[in-house]
């Protein structure tokens, strides 16, 4: 898995490429917590377009990011969930907890997230 960040206006986009699993999710967590806690990013958006599979450790890391963003009064969103990732979020009943968008434009624009957004593939 590769993870990198880029800036778009005031938002920071976290590009994740590859599966997020038990063994690499600590890396995702570290990046997210650093962006929120140290860099004080007001909006963190995770690009899931290239994440085919996420397990519950990956989901838990994203939940930690979401929780911290709420504690710090910043915002946290996801976009581009694969069908499998969407199913994981549905099974864990998190589709209505996270801001989930279909694409980057919508995630940057914010507003009403489409919690039932069709998966991108």
């Amino acid at each position, binding site marked *: 898995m590769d993870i990198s960040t880029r800036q778009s206006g005031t938002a920071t986009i976290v590009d994740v490429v590859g599966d997020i*699993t*038990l063994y690499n999710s600590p890396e995702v*967590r570290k990046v997210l917590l650093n962006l929120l806690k140290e860099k004080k990013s007001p909006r963190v958006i995770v690009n899931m377009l290239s994440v085919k599979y996420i397990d519950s*450790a990956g989901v*838990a890391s994203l939940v*930690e990011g979401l929780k911290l963003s709420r504690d710090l009064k910043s915002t946290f969103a996801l976009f581009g969930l694969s069908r*499998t990732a969407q*199913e*994981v979020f549905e099974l*864990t009943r998190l589709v209505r907890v996270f801001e989930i968008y279909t694409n980057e434009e919508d995630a940057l624009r914010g507003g009403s997230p489409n919690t039932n957004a069709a998966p991108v593939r």
Partner: protein
Amino acid sequence: MASIPTSKGDNPQAPTGAAISVRNLRVNYGSREILHGINFEVPAGETLVILGGSGSGKSTLLRTLVGLETPSGGEIWMRGKNFAAMSEEDRDELRKKMGMSFQGGALFGSMTVGENVALALQEHTELDESTIEIMVRLKLDQVGLSGFENYMPAQLSGGMKKRAAIARALSMDPEILFFDEPSAGLDPIIAAGIDDLILKLKKAFRITIVVVTHELASAFLIADRMILLDKGVIVANGTTKELQASSQPRVRQFLDRIPEPELTGEIDYLQMLTGDVPPIRQ
């Protein structure tokens, strides 16, 4: 068997493309052979139900698949490796990819439900404790036990213990999940909830699932494929539709719930009384 890889490569499938491939598996208890050369495969992401009556060898088969019994012969291929022939160290590594829900729950009585679910994550991963806490709550929520993380197993009903055991089996996000009689002893609503959970897990996490059961309604709901074991041999192996359509006498007897005929022959009856095994009826 020349094509079978022997390296430690991360090939998630057996050489045939199946998640599990069992070949000529034999298991003995002492001098008594329980499984007499079992062959079957489970394609990745599918659910196999192992059916069979009491004493058919289905629980022995499941225990052997997870490494609790040592085969006396044959091969068990999982993730591209022969589980039956690997070192204990390699087996331990492979077991991290497996989850097992035992019939009686088998929770650690001195630990809370949450600690039971967290144990493998604490022992085998580098995850932060706060991540583990969230994972434990996710797993407990999936099995309908939200809020029970601080309960001791003794405080739970039988059905709740079973669900807690499933949450523990799920803790490491296994690629292969084994269930021993998941619905036994549960009321119909809880049992239906467990069937539903198995279906959801397969769909969302792409888990390959092996279930031992004699609950026919549950079996036909969750299975992609089924095998019917009888006296240590597979008498039927196919899709649910194939088994339902089978005219094989033993399959029909099992699926149509026809009781064993009484022993009418004097020799059969004498063999039964003296402990000799009567001939298998077809």
